[in-house]
C-alpha cells in the first residue's frame, strides 16, 4: 500500500495560527493516540490525570469496534472461561494462600489433578513470557537500566517453565492416596505460583510499556558527589507526560542500613513532594512506578532518610543521593 501523490487529499494546509483551544484539543487527541499505539494500555484509564477530552477521543476510537458485525464466540467459550477463571482465581496474595485458607475456613480448592486447562494456562503463560521477551529485548537494547527489566522477564519465564514442568510431573504421578494428597498440594502450589507469576508479569509488562512507549521523556539520575557510598549508583526515570505515569529504575545502589531508607521525591515548581519509599534488592536494583505525579514536576531526587521519627535530618540537598538531570525526549 503506497501513497499516491496525485490523489486529491482532504488534508488541510499546514496551519500556523493554532490557538490555544486547538492545541489543547490536539494534545487530548495525541494522548488518545498513545492509547491507540497500545503503549499505555489501561493504566491511563485508571490515572487521575486522564482528562475528559482524552477519554472522549478514546471512546470515539472504540466506536470503531461497535461498527463491526458481532461474531458469535466459539462453542463452550463461556464454560472454558469460567473454568479458567475459577482455576486462576485472583492474583492478590490474600486470595491465594491455600494453607492459611485452611485455617480460616475459606473455600478450599477442589481435590483434583491437573487438567488440560491448567496445563494450557501454564503453556500460554510461558508463550506470553517468551513472546514478551522476544519483542521487548531488541527495543530495550539501547535503554539504560534495561537489563534489570529484561532479567525480570527471564526470571519469570524460567520460573514459569519450571512451574509447567512441575505440573507435568505432578500429572504423571500414580493414583495412590498418599500421592493424590501430594499431587493436590502441588496443584494448589502451582496455581498459587501461576497467580504470582501473572502478577509479576503484570508489573513487568506495565514497566516495559513505560520504557518502550513513544512520546516518553527520560530523566537520567546522577549520583551526588557528596554521597561517596552511592557514587556508582545509576538510575533513570521514564515519564509519559500525557498521562503523568512514571517509572523509576535504579541500579548499583548500596543497600541502606537498618536505620535508613531510600525515598523518591518530585522536584516541582512549588517545592519537593515525596513520591514513596524505594526498596533496593540484594543486587542493588530497585524499581518504582505509579500513575500520577504532582503538577509542575521538573525533576526527581532520591534521598537517604532516617526511618525513626524524630531523628534530626540534614538539609534536603544534603540527603540527596541521586538527582535527575534535564530530561531527554525519546
Amino acid at each position: 500500500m503506497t501513497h499516491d501523490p496525485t490523489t486529491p487529499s482532504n488534508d488541510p494546509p499546514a496551519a500556523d495560527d493554532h490557538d490555544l483551544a486547538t492545541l489543547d484539543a490536539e494534545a487530548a487527541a495525541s494522548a488518545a493516540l498513545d492509547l491507540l499505539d497500545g503503549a499505555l494500555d489501561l493504566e491511563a484509564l485508571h490515572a487521575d490525570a486522564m482528562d475528559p477530552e482524552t477519554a472522549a477521543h478514546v471512546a470515539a476510537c472504540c466506536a470503531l469496534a461497535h461498527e463491526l458485525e458481532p461474531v458469535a464466540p466459539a462453542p463452550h467459550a463461556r464454560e472454558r472461561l469460567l473454568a479458567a477463571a475459577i482455576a486462576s482465581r485472583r492474583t492478590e496474595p490474600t486470595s491465594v494462600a491455600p494453607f492459611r485458607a485452611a485455617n480460616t475456613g475459606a473455600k478450599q480448592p477442589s481435590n483434583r489433578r491437573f487438567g488440560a486447562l491448567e496445563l494450557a494456562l501454564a503453556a500460554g503463560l510461558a508463550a506470553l513470557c517468551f513472546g514478551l521477551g522476544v519483542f521487548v529485548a531488541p527495543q530495550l537494547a539501547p535503554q539504560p537500566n534495561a537489563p534489570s527489566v529484561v532479567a525480570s522477564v527471564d526470571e519469570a519465564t524460567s520460573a514459569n517453565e519450571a512451574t509447567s514442568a512441575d505440573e507435568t510431573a505432578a500429572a504423571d504421578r500414580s493414583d495412590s492416596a498418599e500421592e493424590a494428597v501430594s499431587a493436590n498440594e502441588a496443584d494448589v502450589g502451582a496455581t498459587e505460583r501461576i497467580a504470582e507469576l501473572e502478577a509479576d508479569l503484570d508489573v513487568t509488562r506495565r514497566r516495559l510499556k513505560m520504557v518502550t512507549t513513544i512520546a516518553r521523556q527520560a530523566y537520567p539520575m546522577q549520583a551526588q558527589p557528596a554521597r561517596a557510598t552511592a557514587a556508582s549508583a545509576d538510575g533513570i526515570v521514564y515519564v509519559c507526560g500525557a498521562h503523568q505515569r512514571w517509572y523509576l529504575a535504579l541500579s548499583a545502589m548500596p543497600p541502606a542500613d537498618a536505620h535508613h531508607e531510600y525515598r523518591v521525591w518530585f522536584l516541582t515548581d512549588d517545592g519537593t513532594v515525596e513520591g514513596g519509599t524505594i526498596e533496593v534488592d540484594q543486587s542493588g536494583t530497585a524499581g518504582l512506578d505509579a500513575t500520577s505525579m504532582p503538577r509542575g514536576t521538573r525533576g526527581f531526587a532520591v534521598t537517604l532518610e532516617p526511618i525513626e521519627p524524630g531523628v534530626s535530618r540534614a538539609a534536603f540537598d544534603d540527603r540527596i543521593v541521586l538527582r535527575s538531570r534535564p530530561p531527554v525526549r525519546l
Partner: protein
Amino acid sequence: MTRTAQAPRLRPAPDPSDGDLVARVADGDETALGRLHDRHASLLTALVRRMISDPSDAEDIVQEAFLQVWHQAPRYDRSKASVPTWLVLIARSRAIDRLRSERVKSRTLNDFGQQRGATHTSPEGARTVLEEQRRSRLRNELGKLPDEQRQVLELAFFNGLTQSQIAGSTGIPLGTVKTRTLLAMKKLRAALTDEIRDFL
C-alpha cells in the same frame, strides 16, 4: 366456593447494568463474569477477529481479555470509561500484544485491502434493534470520513500500527499520518457525540 390460592406474580428482576456486573466480578462472582461474557463476547470476538486472522488465536485472546477482566475488575472505575469501552481496550491491547510479539504485521497489513468491507457473520448473536441502529449510524458516520483518514485510523486501531509504522508501511509522510489520524478522530468524535456518551 373454594378459592384457589393465587401464586404471587413475580416481577422479573431488571437486568443488572454492566457496571453492576463488573462490581460483582470484582467480588469474585464468576456468574457475573459469565453474564458479561454473554453480553459482550460477540463484540470482542468481532474486534479480535478483525485484528487477528487466525480464529483460534482470536478465541484465545478473547478468553485472555475476559480473564484480565476477572483479575482487574477491582480496578475498574466507571467514571473513566464505560464497560464496553473498557472491554474493547482490554481486548484490543491483548490483540496488539499478540500482533507485535508474533511479528505478523506484514501479513495483516497485506490483508488490509481484503479485510475492509468484509462481512462478518453472526449466526447466533442476539441483536437488538437499538444495537442495529447504532451500528448502522456508526457505519454511516465512518463512511463519511475521507478514505485516507479512515485508512490511517483503521490501521492504527485494528492493525495496532504506530504512527511511524503506518508512515513506513504506506509511504505517507509521518506528519501527514498524524494529521490525518487526528482529523479522523476529531470528526468521529464530533459525529458520534451521542454514542460516545454511552461509551464513556
